């Protein structure tokens, strides 16, 4: 761990946190375009956050400390997650603190906190939201883990940086195991980030919403942090996907010269992924809530299959 | 000399109590005589420990480690039962279940029973052994029907007929042994002396001896309570007075088994095969399994523990059947702890029944609330008899099971089944009696719980520590049998 490494680490973390809302904006913009709307612009999320931070927070009478602490915890978790996923470079000293398993753990921690916070007020919707969120979570989490395991088996390591390095140096070949895993990962990504077809990020219809039900009681700065964390989460997921399945172009080591190229590559890949997400969301319709487990168990199955296929083909 | 005391005291007591048994102080006399017998037995034990096996009266009586420990056990349980019976029978008298005249019979026969059992244990003559065993039946049969209820008369009748017929078979077996011995030792008394027979056991005719063993096993086995010869046992235990149930279970069965084992040693010598062992293992396993299955159907508390005795006799028979030093040691130990525990349980049961006025287990509830000592006695006693450590029953079951696993693994599933079913059956019935809402009442006489806890304490001790002299006894006896 050297100074350059730490500098890189901090740089990347800050970059991710700052860039995350832009990605969200980009996805929304793409979606608007696809739906023949004008779209609010990429920077809209920043504006929203800014406005929320300025508002006066309104909290229910019986909210406990947990309720108020959760947005910060959430934000911290996501920041950490963003800090350990190799986006720009693979030499990240913090990455040793958390491998893929810990990464899944971080997401789980965030999920548990937001679910608890949702139940804190004691309204009917909070409870429903928490229960649905945990329903998604209990299947998405292992599916995610299995996806990552396929990569881990491939590279013989669970450290993301090592995985990425190994995969980036690999000859390009269609890897059936990895392909399964990629599909599974995509499904998990959709579910975990409250995207269509599992959830609709723009709805407030009580019977179908998940994410929005969870955060119904939040306002102002709390809401801002939660939303920002959600944006980072989406960003992190996308970068994980990129790192696992299309790792090429990332800067290895603390390579300052490679940095601009890495930034460019990352931006391009993210833009593409965001657009893809928008397309996906446009062409598909939302499932009913109780179909979500089927969707996710398919993901889980695919991930496990991917792992098994890996063992059958890569002896 | 001590033998005279051991045998004379109860005989004298019997005669005296036959005259004075109805008096107010008869229970105390009973206790005194039992205590005196115990003291005499203790002296005998000291003597045997000091100078080894001995014979007396022209070899008619014989003391070795095997029977002396049973004598000590018999006298001890006889004494504690006498202590227990004092308040118990007083309460029965006050409830009008027995009259003073019958108490005379009770006390006289009690001492007579002790006498016959001690004769059975101490005699060297297989013929006398048979006579004394029959005497033990005769002296207890009228005790079983002491209450003169239809059920008790039926039980006593069955006891009498079944054991009588059984013992007739044993007599035929004894005749056959005599027949075989006659050719080796010549006729006369000498041919029935166990010590003499033991010396020449290898020369005895195998065909006759194996036939003899069948008759003896069926005969004495009836008294032991081996399935399917056991049918008298639960009835007699349930319908007689509780002190009698205690001595039947605790002592009589042991003594009958003692007779079987004495014969087994001779027959083994003659045959030189594992025939007797296999027979006993088979009977033992059958007994354990069937008794366990019977256990789960019981409603009467004393019947329940009667069946439990059958089950334990099965275990002991199996142990002796396996043979070998460890198994025989375990069998002897099991005899000891079973008779201590089971008689202790019957004491507790006796008080519980008096307190609640019923033997039906469904009507006995929550002893621990109103009568903590009885409740704890019953609970701990049942756990002990079920082979839960640290009580001594576990010690012997430990040795028996591990030896069985090592030498006869095929038998262990049966044992396991028997023990598990017995546990479920007994504890499932005892627990609601001990715990829960109470329905017991107060009694005019303080229960004598000292015997219960004395027995449990002894059994607990045997589970954790076997004193060296006792160990020596067991070892010598096991060497003799195994």
């Amino acid at each position, binding site marked *: 761990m050297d100074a350059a490494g730490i500098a890189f680490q901090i740089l990347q973390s800050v970059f991710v946190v700052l860039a995350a809302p832009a990605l969200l904006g980009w996805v929304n913009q793409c979606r608007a375009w696809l739906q023949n709307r004008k779209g609010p612009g990429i920077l809209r999320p920043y504006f929203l956050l800014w406005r929320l931070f300025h508002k006066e927070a309104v909290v229910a009478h019986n909210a406990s400390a947990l309720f108020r602490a959760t947005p910060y915890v959430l934000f911290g978790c996501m920041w950490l997650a963003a800090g350990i996923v190799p986006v720009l470079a693979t030499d990240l000293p913090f990455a040793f603190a958390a491998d893929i398993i810990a990464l899944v753990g971080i997401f789980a921690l965030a999920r548990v906190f937001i679910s608890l916070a949702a139940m804190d007020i004691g309204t009917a919707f909070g409870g429903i939201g928490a229960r649905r969120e945990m329903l998604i979570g209990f299947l998405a989490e292992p599916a995610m883990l299995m996806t990552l395991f396929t990569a881990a088996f491939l590279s013989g390591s669970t450290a993301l940086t090592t995985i990425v390095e190994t995969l980036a140096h690999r000859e390009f070949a269609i890897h059936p195991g990895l392909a399964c895993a990629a599909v599974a990962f995509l499904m998990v990504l959709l579910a975990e980030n409250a995207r269509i077809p599992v959830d609709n990020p723009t709805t407030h219809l009580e019977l179908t919403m998940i994410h929005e039900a969870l955060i119904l009681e939040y306002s102002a700065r709390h809401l801002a942090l939660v939303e920002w964390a959600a944006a980072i989460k989406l960003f992190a997921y996308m970068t994980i996907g990129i790192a696992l399945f299309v790792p090429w172009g990332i800067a290895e080591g603390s390579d300052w010269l490679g940095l601009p190229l890495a930034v460019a590559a990352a931006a391009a890949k993210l833009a593409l992924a965001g657009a893809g997400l928008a397309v996906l969301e446009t062409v598909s319709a939302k499932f009913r809530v109780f179909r979500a487990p089927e969707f996710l168990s398919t993901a889980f199955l695919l991930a496990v299959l991917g792992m098994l296929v890996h063992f059958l083909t890569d002896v | 000399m001590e033998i005279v005391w051991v045998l004379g005291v109860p005989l004298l007591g019997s005669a005296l109590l036959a005259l004075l048994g109805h008096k107010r102080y008869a229970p105390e006399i009973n206790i005194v005589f039992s205590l005196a017998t115990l003291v005499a037995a203790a002296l005998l034990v000291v003597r045997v420990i000091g100078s080894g096996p001995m014979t007396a009266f022209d070899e008619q009586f014989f003391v070795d480690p095997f029977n002396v420990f049973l004598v000590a056990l018999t006298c001890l349980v006889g004494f504690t039962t006498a202590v227990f019976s004092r308040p118990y029978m007083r309460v029965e008298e006050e409830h009008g279940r027995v009259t003073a005249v019958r108490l005379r019979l009770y006390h006289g026969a009690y001492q007579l029973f002790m006498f016959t059992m001690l004769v059975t244990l101490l005699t060297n003559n297989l013929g006398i052994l048979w006579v004394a065993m029959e005497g033990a039946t005769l002296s207890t049969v009228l005790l079983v029907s002491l209450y003169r209820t239809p059920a008790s008369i039926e039980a006593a009748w069955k006891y009498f007929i079944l054991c009588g017929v059984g013992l*007739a078979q044993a007599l035929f077996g004894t005749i056959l042994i*005599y027949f075989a011995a006659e050719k080796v030792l010549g006729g006369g008394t000498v041919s029935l002396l166990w010590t003499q027979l033991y010396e020449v056991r290898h020369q005895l005719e195998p065909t*006759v001896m194996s036939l003899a063993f069948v008759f003896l096993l069926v005969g004495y086995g009836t008294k032991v309570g081996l399935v399917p010869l056991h049918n008298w046992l639960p009835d007699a235990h349930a319908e007689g007075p509780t002190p009698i149930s205690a001595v039947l279970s605790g002592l009589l069965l042991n003594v009958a088994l003692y007779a079987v084992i004495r014969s087994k040693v001779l027959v083994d010598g003659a045959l030189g095969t594992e025939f007797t062992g296999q027979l006993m293992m088979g009977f033992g396993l059958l007994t354990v399994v069937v008794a366990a299955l019977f256990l789960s159907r019981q409603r009467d508390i004393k019947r329940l523990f009667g069946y439990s005795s059958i089950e334990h006799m099965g275990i002991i028979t199996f142990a002796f059947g396996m043979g070998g030093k460890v198994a025989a040691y375990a069998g002897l130990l099991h005899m000891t702890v079973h008779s201590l525990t089971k008689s202790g349980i019957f004491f507790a049961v006796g008080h519980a029944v008096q307190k609640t006025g019923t033997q039906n287990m469904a009507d006995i509830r929550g002893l621990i609330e109103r009568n903590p000592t009885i409740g704890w006695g019953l609970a701990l006693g049942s756990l002990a008899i079920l082979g839960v450590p640290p009580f001594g029953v576990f010690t012997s079951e430990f040795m028996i099971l591990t030896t069985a696993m090592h030498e006869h693994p095929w038998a262990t599933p049966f044992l396991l089944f028997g023990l598990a079913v017995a546990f479920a059956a007994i504890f499932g019935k005892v627990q609601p009696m001990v715990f829960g809402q109470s329905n017991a009442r107060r009694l005019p006489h303080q229960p004598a719980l000292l015997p219960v806890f004395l027995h449990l304490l002894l059994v607990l001790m045997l589970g954790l520590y076997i004193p060296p002299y006792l160990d020596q006894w067991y070892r010598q006896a096991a060497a003799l049998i195994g």
Partner: protein
Amino acid sequence: MTEQWVNLAATILLIIAFAMLSQRRVLSLVRLFAWQGLVLSVSTAMVAYSTGQSHLWISAALTLGLKVIVLPIVLHSLIVRLNVRWDVEPLINVPTTMLAGIGLVIFAFALATPISQLAGTVTRSTLGIALASVLLSFLMMIVRRKAVPQVIGFLAMENGLFFAATSATYGMPLVVELGIALDVLVGTFVFGIFFFHIRETFDSLDIRHMEKLKED
């Protein structure tokens, strides 16, 4: 010479055993029992005479006193006092019982033959008969449904055993014989007491009244 007489006695014993098995009347049973005792006593005396075993004389006298005189009288008076003279229907009909009895005799003979070869006594061939009469008495106890015949069966079984002892071994040692006799005597008295108790409690000596203690 003695051997033939003893064999004759044995045969009579076997016939008596069969007769008891088939006899329906209680008093006749008691009479048969007395006859059985007499034959036993006579055969014991013959053995005693031929072998010179002095204690067998005592045995013979004991048998005569106890089993020919005392027990039949006691039984007779009990029957009279309890007024249970009526006929006894066995549980299984007589022909079946007889067939089973014949089977038992064959079995007993088969069992006893190898042992008889070993015996050095003049009476050895009777061991099979002794065993057969023991088993026949056993069978009789099984098929009787009244208390008194059952007890007579029990006593007859004792007789069979006694005969086995004499025939196979020239009798057990005297001490043992005395002890056995004492037991039989006391046993009979106890039975007597029981008859009264049963009668008092159940108004009958039918042992079918005593089938209450069972698993249900």
